[in-house]
Structure formats: structure tokens, C-alpha cells
């Protein structure tokens, strides 16, 4: 701790520590599903009435066992890395934290035998060969710690995600219809059973940022606002009635969870972002 002025302390953090944490995290999340996710898939399998759908859920459960035991990636699409970075205002960094995060991605994707799935240009499309850069969202918080929510997000489910600017009077029914239409359109493409992350409010980009962040909430976490809580539960039930089922073959298991985050917005606006996550939800949270 370095004293910089009376009553206020600063903490030095060496950014190489950030690199190490990112490296270890990307390897770990690509090899192991969280216990809470495995429990949800097991429960879904028990409740699934269609035989072929049950057998696909069984494949998914066997897959995570093989990946964990063999230390091999759960899925060949090991994603593009997204980091929600929170830096306490009492932290002094020894170097560039964005470079440090990207270095962690570079080392993790190399040493963990993870697929490099990032290209440099929308049309030239040359692979950057180390899965960098990561997409990083930064917030300054209180305190003297760094918190990182780290995800490897696959391309298939991301391609089925979208942002729509509804008008305020379309209200909660408008949001529900939009979500159900989006998921119906996606069908089997985003690798259901999916987790649905919804961001309502803010503006165009804020809605997308909070939608993705909602996917990083604990799977058993429920929204505290009663209206949003009910929306999560209603959508969960209605999505599972769509009969899309695991990999789109039909059945009772289309989504495993629905998460809704919200933010204040302009009087004229009701932005809604829907970020779809495949069943292989790979993310973690670390504190330095």
C-alpha cells in the first residue's frame, strides 16, 4: 500500500498478474462447465418427454465429462473472449491492462489448444492467429480490487442475437413478442437448450452490453425487481412451449434460463437487446 494522501490508500497491481488470471480462466472455462449448468441440464433431461431430445441432452452431459477428464475443449468453437472489467479507483496499474488481458488470451489460447477464431477485417478476414483482441467493457468502481467477468462466446449463438428499438407503448407485451419471435427464428441454430440474456433500456449499445452481462449472472440468480422477475419467469415458460427443443429437434427443453437486466432510458425509447447463449455457457468471475 502506498500512501498518496491523508486518509486515502492506493494498491499497486502488477498487470502480469492480470495476464496470468486471464490465461488460466480461458483454459478452465473451455474445458469445464459450471456445476449449476450441469445440474440444470440433468434436470432438463429428466423432464424431457421426447426420446431423441433426451438422447441429445445425454450427449451434452457425456461431452462435458469427456472434456473434463481429457482436458480437451467442450466445443471446437472456443469463442471470442469478452471481459467485463471493473477496476477499483484505489488501484494503481503497473502497465497497460488491455495489453495484459490480450496477452492472457494469447497465452491461454495457445497453451490450452483452443481454436483461434478471430479475424482482423470484415472483408479481408485474416485470422489474427492468437484469438486477440478480446472485447473489453470497463467500469471504475469503489475499492482497491480488480474484478473480471470473463467469457468465451461462440459464434453460432451470437449470430442469432439482435438489438431492436421498440417504442415505449409497445411495453412488456412488445418485449415478449420480440423475444419469442427471435428465438423461433433462431430455431436449432444457436445450439439449444439456450440461455437467453435480455437487456432492456439504456440506448442502442447499452442494451447490448447489459444483455451480455445478464448471461454472466449466476444461473440460479433471479431479478430483484418484481416486474422483471416475473418477465424472466414468464419468458422461461413461454420459450419452453415453443417446441424447438435440443438442437431444434423438438421437445420440452428449449431454454435453461432467462436473464433480464435493465437500465434507465430516454422518454422516447425502449431498446431491447437479446443475446443468445448456447448450452455450452463458458464464463467465470475472478477478483484480484
Amino acid at each position, binding site marked *: 500500500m502506498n500512501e498518496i494522501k491523508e486518509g486515502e490508500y492506493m494498491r499497486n497491481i502488477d498487470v502480469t498478474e492480470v495476464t496470468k488470471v486471464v490465461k488460466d480462466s480461458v483454459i478452465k472455462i473451455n474445458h469445464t462447465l459450471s456445476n449449476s449448468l450441469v445440474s440444470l441440464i440433468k434436470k432438463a433431461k429428466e423432464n424431457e418427454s421426447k426420446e431423441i431430445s433426451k438422447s441429445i441432452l445425454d450427449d451434452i452431459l457425456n461431452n462435458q465429462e469427456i472434456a473434463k477428464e481429457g482436458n*480437451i475443449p*467442450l466445443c*471446437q*468453437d472456443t469463442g471470442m473472449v469478452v471481459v467485463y472489467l471493473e477496476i477499483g479507483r484505489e488501484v494503481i496499474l503497473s502497465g497497460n491492462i488491455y495489453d495484459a488481458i490480450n496477452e492472457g488470451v494469447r497465452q491461454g489460447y495457445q497453451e490450452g*489448444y*483452443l*481454436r483461434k477464431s478471430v479475424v482482423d477485417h470484415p472483408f479481408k478476414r485474416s485470422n489474427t492467429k492468437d484469438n486477440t483482441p478480446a472485447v473489453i467493457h470497463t467500469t471504475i468502481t469503489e475499492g482497491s480490487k480488480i474484478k473480471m467477468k470473463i467469457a468465451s462466446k461462440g459464434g453460432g449463438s451470437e449470430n442469432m442475437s439482435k438489438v431492436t428499438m421498440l417504442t415505449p407503448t409497445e411495453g412488456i407485451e412488445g418485449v415478449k413478442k420480440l423475444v419469442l419471435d427471435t428465438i423461433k427464428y433462431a430455431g436449432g441454430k444457436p*445450439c439449444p437448450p439456450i440461455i437467453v440474456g435480455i437487456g432492456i433500456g439504456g440506448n442502442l449499445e447499452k442494451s447490448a452490453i447489459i444483455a451480455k452481462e445478464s448471461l454472466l449472472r449466476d444461473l440460479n440468480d433471479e431479478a430483484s425487481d418484481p416486474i422483471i422477475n416475473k418477465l424472466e419467469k414468464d419468458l422461461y415458460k413461454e420459450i419452453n412451449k415453443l417446441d424447438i427443443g435440443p438442437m*431444434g429437434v423438438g421437445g420440452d427443453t428449449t431454454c435453461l434460463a432467462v436473464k433480464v437486466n435493465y437500465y434507465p432510458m430516454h422518454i422516447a425509447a425502449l431498446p431491447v437487446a437479446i443475446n443468445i447463449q448456447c448450452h455450452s455457457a463458458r464464463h467465470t468471475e475472478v477478483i484480484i
Partner: protein
Amino acid sequence: MIKLITPISSKDIETLVVGEKVLFTGTIYTARDQAHLRLIDEPNPAFNLEGSVIYYVGPSPKKDGFAIGASGPTSSYRMDKLSPPLMERGLKVMIGKGDRSEEFRKEMIKNKAVYLIATGGAGALLSSKIKKCDLIMYEDLGAEAVYKLEVEEFPCFVAYDIYGNSIFDRS
């Protein structure tokens, strides 16, 4: 459940109906978006398209002691417009994930080919059915290059059959 040995004949195709589980043994080839673009204009591909099986996959890097890295299917719809020229040259089986366009389905039936799905996200499980992997075309494409895979009882489900049925239809 049906077990098929590659290459696949038109007679094999006739036995496949929607929802059926199929285990493939033999040689299958990988190709995704960029490899399809090139194969279409390729006068002499390094493999025989007649009776061939193409698997839409971009594997993760392999570790020592393994034939291949994680190898689950990628979304097939991206290849919808690229598949017909290859089916016209003999491609019989396509393996991927997810629904495809009506236009693709019509072309597929016309060419007496079939579309199957493998379990998406089960890359570790599916890689255990692949015994050998050799790069045969377009090395510069990395994970998207064409690989020749030797598979044993590689598990899939028939998604579209030549009788016009789809596993994704709800009626």
C-alpha cells in the same frame, strides 16, 4: 439405427428417413464457408466428390496423443447457397447443425442427397469417434481447411430426407 459405410450410394440415401440415428464409418471430409467457395471452382479436388460425405466443422487444435481436437458441427445455413454445385458433382451427405433454407432443401431432394445433424457443442464427444485426421486441401485456411477424417460409428440424426420431411417441422 442405421450403420453406413462410406462412400454413400443413392440406395443408402433411400433408406434414410427423418429422425433416424445414423452411425457413419469410413472416410468423411471437412469443409466450411471458405473451403466451399474454393471447392466450387476447383476442377480437380483432392478427393472424389461422388458419394462423398462433407462435415461442417472447424476443429480446435489437437493435443499430442489425440487424432484431432474438439470437433462438433458448425451451423449449416451458411453453406446453403454453396452446397448445390457440389451436390451436382456427387456430394451425397452433409453433416452440420440447425435448419436450412427451402431452396437448399429442394436442391438436396433434386440431387438425391441427405442432410444430417450431429449434436452441436458436443465437440469432445464427437472427436472421440474420429480416429485419423489428415489435411488434404487449403492449408492456409487453418481450422477451415479441408481435412480427411477416418471415423468409426460417427453419430448423427437424419434432419432432411429425400421424401421432403424435416426434423425441424412441427405439425
